[in-house]
């Protein structure tokens, strides 16, 4: 995983200006190459189909799935012009062992309808990851077998990794212990 040997650090030139090849598509998803990484931009409705096709291509393992909240950074420049930016993003990272390749799928999720179809049926390992994204971002994965909080207590209110959830100003919420056994 050697980085491109660029000697100078230049804050004016973003690293991803290297080669955004336009209009390259894989299974209908827009392909952007950032250094040695391959990023696919998929529509929310096409996600399951895309992951199914990629799985048939040998991307057998879903390494990671998580959310990002772009509330305070809406006009990110590393997004191609064809993609409409939304507040949330769900990022899925897939691994192909035979060819030793990775792809990362970025899905835009609107604020007023933060739902994404679950990948549980294709990659059961996403169960905990999707629960984490739900817990910390409030993104709901439809048809997920157990869409509950995973890291925080069940009765916690709010989703801490959202950008409008500030640090250090939330009173500690304790769970009421049961008094009888």
């Amino acid at each position: 995983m050697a980085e491109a040997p660029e000697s100078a650090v230049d804050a004016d030139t973003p690293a991803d200006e290297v080669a955004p090849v336009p209009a390259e598509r894989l299974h209908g998803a827009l392909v952007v190459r950032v250094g040695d990484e391959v990023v696919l931009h998929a529509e929310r409705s096409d996600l399951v189909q895309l992951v199914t096709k990629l799985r048939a291509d040998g991307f057998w393992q879903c390494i990671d799935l998580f959310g990002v909240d772009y509330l305070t950074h809406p006009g990110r420049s590393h997004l191609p012009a064809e993609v409409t930016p939304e507040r949330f993003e769900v990022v899925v990272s897939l691994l192909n062992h035979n060819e030793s390749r990775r792809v990362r799928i970025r899905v835009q999720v609107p604020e007023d309808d933060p739902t994404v179809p679950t990948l549980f049926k294709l990659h059961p390992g996403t169960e905990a990851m999707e629960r984490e994204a739900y817990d910390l971002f409030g993104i709901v994965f439809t048809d997920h077998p157990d869409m509950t909080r995973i890291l925080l207590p069940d009765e916690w209110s709010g989703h801490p990794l959202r950008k409008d959830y500030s640090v250090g100003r939330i009173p500690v919420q304790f769970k009421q212990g049961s008094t009888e056994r």
Partner: protein
Amino acid sequence: MTVTDSKADTAKLDAALEHLTADHSVLRLSETEAERRSGYQADSERMIMNMGPQHPSTHGVLRLVLELEGEIVTRSKPVIGYLHTGMEKTGEELTYAQGCTNVTRMDYASPLFNELAFSLATEKLLGIEVPERAQWIRMLMCEMNRLGSHLLFMATNGMDLGAVSMMLYGWREREEVLRFLEMVTGLRMNHNYIRPGGVAADLPDGWRDSVIKILETLPHRLAEFDTLLTGQPIWRERLQGVGVITAEECLALGTTGPILRSTGFAWDLRRDQPYLRYDDVEFDVVVGTYGDCFDRYAIRLAEIHESIRIVWQILEKMPTGDYRIQDKKVTPPPRARIDESMEALIHHFKIFTEGFKVPEGEAYAAVESPRGELGCYIVSDGSAKPYRMHIRGPSFVNLQTLPHLMRDSLIADTVAIVSSVDPIMGEVDR
């Protein structure tokens, strides 16, 4: 002990998927429901029981909700979050220079790997490559840390299964490794040694002798482990055939590291997607055959031997040169310059208060930690703090294998199984 690339085939993979998604080994109960049904129920053959969160074998605070039929575990669910401290949120509040102090506390048994993943992701965004010596120092430190982490596993795995003397031996050996890490970084754990741009300090005088001393004593000690555990009938009885998993199930569940390799699937990022200078050293990716607790134990023991092999090569090949990049935007000035130059003082002050700005973009870097793929994903908005910092903790994902490993096993075996997965709860909950 050979590198055989047995890759899974699609038909088996689909079968595993069907079985895992339809599987009834995961107990999906809400907390209130579990509480209501806990204990003996007169109208049911099955009993819900809580194991943990405080149990010596849970390596921290892992709670297992088990559904039992007599002494057999039918379904189970790991309940986590007891150590959740919002480290990803904290990461957004710290500059890149401070970030390592945060991530290093996630997987506290192998802190240097967290720092490495974070630094690699930051360096990817910056578009810099650290000097040759820094790469080799990072490799040396990580492999030493891997020794420490696996030795800790040997200790706790032995203790969990009743070989209590193993705890002392494992801890004794690990202490030697920690002493070396302390000598180099100043701290036994949570080093904050690997930083974006290189490492915090050059190796101190006498480091080579300390490493050689460890490398020379360890093989003898490992031979004792073999006598005490590997060849011992009771030990094999407790582990062989317990908690079996197949390669296809591992792939579907996102499992990496020794658990995946124990099934015979040779996948190690050090070899398959090399980072640092792993291209220049020789080592074997050790795989198992049966995917049971014994294979997971044996693989970790063998990986200690492989790490020793790697470190010998590092000692031979360690180059001279800079231990951090000489790029004024990232690297603070040398300590001596601060006393004599006003500019150096300002420069130092700026880097440690404001931090350095990282170009806008996103990057993911992954390393092979002792527990599997440890990844770091950073989104930068062009400021001095990460806009989003996500850590892919191998323990968090690996923990999902527990219900499948435990299905239809004895309650006494759950301890062996949890131990063989080797979860570090700090990383699971973050």
